[in-house]
């Protein structure tokens, strides 16, 4: 199984297509558990999960915590902003402290790419990457892939456009890596300053014009404009960005009739996505959140349920 000979989930680059299929297949019955009156199964009784987020998060952290709780694991969150990290405790000492308390899985988000890999090398705990810098965000890509597969039936050979700030986006990278394993045609589009120069090395097509990029696509994954990372004047203004790249119904008219719109959240409504699109039937923004819990339950089960 996925985690029989693998301790951690650090990125989709490490997983095979079979591994991803197993995770997505396992998430299906997990989603059923979520929709019941009694949203709890006893599977991970006695297991301990710790979330350690050096960057802000609403959905990823809550989603991991609830996923653990629905499976009867004990979950704790290390609130970095009120922890000994503020007294200057090093990352390595923080890891050892969490490990010494009996934690089985540590879920980490950090602004530096590669931090989860460093953590994984320095602990016996299993480690899940919940986002590292502009590198990977594997569980977001898995939930995106789950959402697409659920609506389209299969991921095989779909045309997917990823729109926005590709440069700073770990969501984009993990999606590209994951979807490539299913032979998808992946297009990236955004302002030239936000498209990495060598992105085509990942096997994607680069577009500067959003209408061209959306032509005939099955799926549009709209990225959040990461306003907190835009300090270098990479585009003239938010309103100009919006004029050229905001996903509206009009722009989507060139896509396939049954186009699906995803957004990892939180949304800047009216900036990268029009509110009317976000609220429409073609958007799965809210279902992505539900699917995120299901996918994370699947991962936790595969990591800790029995002799994984």
């Amino acid at each position, binding site marked *: 199984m996925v985690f029989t000979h693998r301790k951690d989930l650090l990125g989709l680059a490490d997983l095979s297509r079979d591994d991803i299929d197993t995770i997505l297949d396992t998430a299906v019955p997990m989603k059923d558990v979520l929709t019941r009156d009694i949203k709890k199964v*006893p*599977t991970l009784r006695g297991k301990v999960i710790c979330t350690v987020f050096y960057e802000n998060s609403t959905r990823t952290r809550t989603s991991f915590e609830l996923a653990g709780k629905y499976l009867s694991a004990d979950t704790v969150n290390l609130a970095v902003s009120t922890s000994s990290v503020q007294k200057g405790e090093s990352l390595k000492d923080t890891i050892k402290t969490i490990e010494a308390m009996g934690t089985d899985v540590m879920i980490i988000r950090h602004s530096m790419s590669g931090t989860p890999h460093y953590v994984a090398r320095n602990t016996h705990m299993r480690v899940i990457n919940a986002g590292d810098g502009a590198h990977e965000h594997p569980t977001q890509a898995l939930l995106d892939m789950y959402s697409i597969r659920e609506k389209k039936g299969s991921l095989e050979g779909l045309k997917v456009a990823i729109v926005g700030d590709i440069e700073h986006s770990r969501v984009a990278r993990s999606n590209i890596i994951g979807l490539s394993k299913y032979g998808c045609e992946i297009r990236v589009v955004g302002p030239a300053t936000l498209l990495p120069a060598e992105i085509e090395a990942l096997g994607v097509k680069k577009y500067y014009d959003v209408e061209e990029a959306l032509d005939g696509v099955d799926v549009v994954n709209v990225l959040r404009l990461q306003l907190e990372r835009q300090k270098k004047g990479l585009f003239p203004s938010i309103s100009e960005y919006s004029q050229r790249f905001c996903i509206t119904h009009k722009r989507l008219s060139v896509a396939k009739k049954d186009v699906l719109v995803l957004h990892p959240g939180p949304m800047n409504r009216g900036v990268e996505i029009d509110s009317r699109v976000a609220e429409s039937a073609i958007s799965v923004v809210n279902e992505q959140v539900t699917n995120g819990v299901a996918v994370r339950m699947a991962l936790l089960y595969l990591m800790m349920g029995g002799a994984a």
Partner: protein
Amino acid sequence: MRSTLFLHGVDLSYCKGVLRVGLIEKKKIMDETAMRRAITRIAHEVIERNKGVKDLVVVGIRRRGGPLAERLAAKIGEIEGVVIPVGLLDITLYRDDLTALGPQPLVHRTEVGFDINGKKVVLVDDVLYTGRTVRAAMDALTDLGRPRSIQLAVLVDRGHRELPIKADFVGKNVPTSSRETVSVRVQEIDGIDEVVIEEKT
């Protein structure tokens, strides 16, 4: 002249062959007819015990309890002239032996498309052995609602209980040793209806 072949003291001369690594088929204890008759008898017993089929539902435990539940429900429905709701339970998330199992089992969907509150649930499985699967199934079931009662129907009871669990309806009681394995095969999954005893080599 009957040829004899011994492996670890087991006479293989009447075996059909080695089915799986480490398991040798010893004896066929039920064929298609015997299985059909057992299910027909259980169907009558269920109706008699429950004085009819009011509020009766049938739930099979994955995997082979599934097809058996379908057959039992169809038979009960045929006798009483009604349609009996059938559900399917996956108990993987409720097992107490997950760490003891070799490879990690895949989780499948539980498909109980009706409300079980106040219902008389007939739980169906292929083989009753330690009772741990049934314990897990009862937990899984009560997380879906509060049935009025849960009854247990099994095709084979092979003994060796580790929990205080007893079947209400049994197709065939088969005394076995713990070295043996009872394999129920069903048309829908295995392409044949039969019950065989196998022995670990």
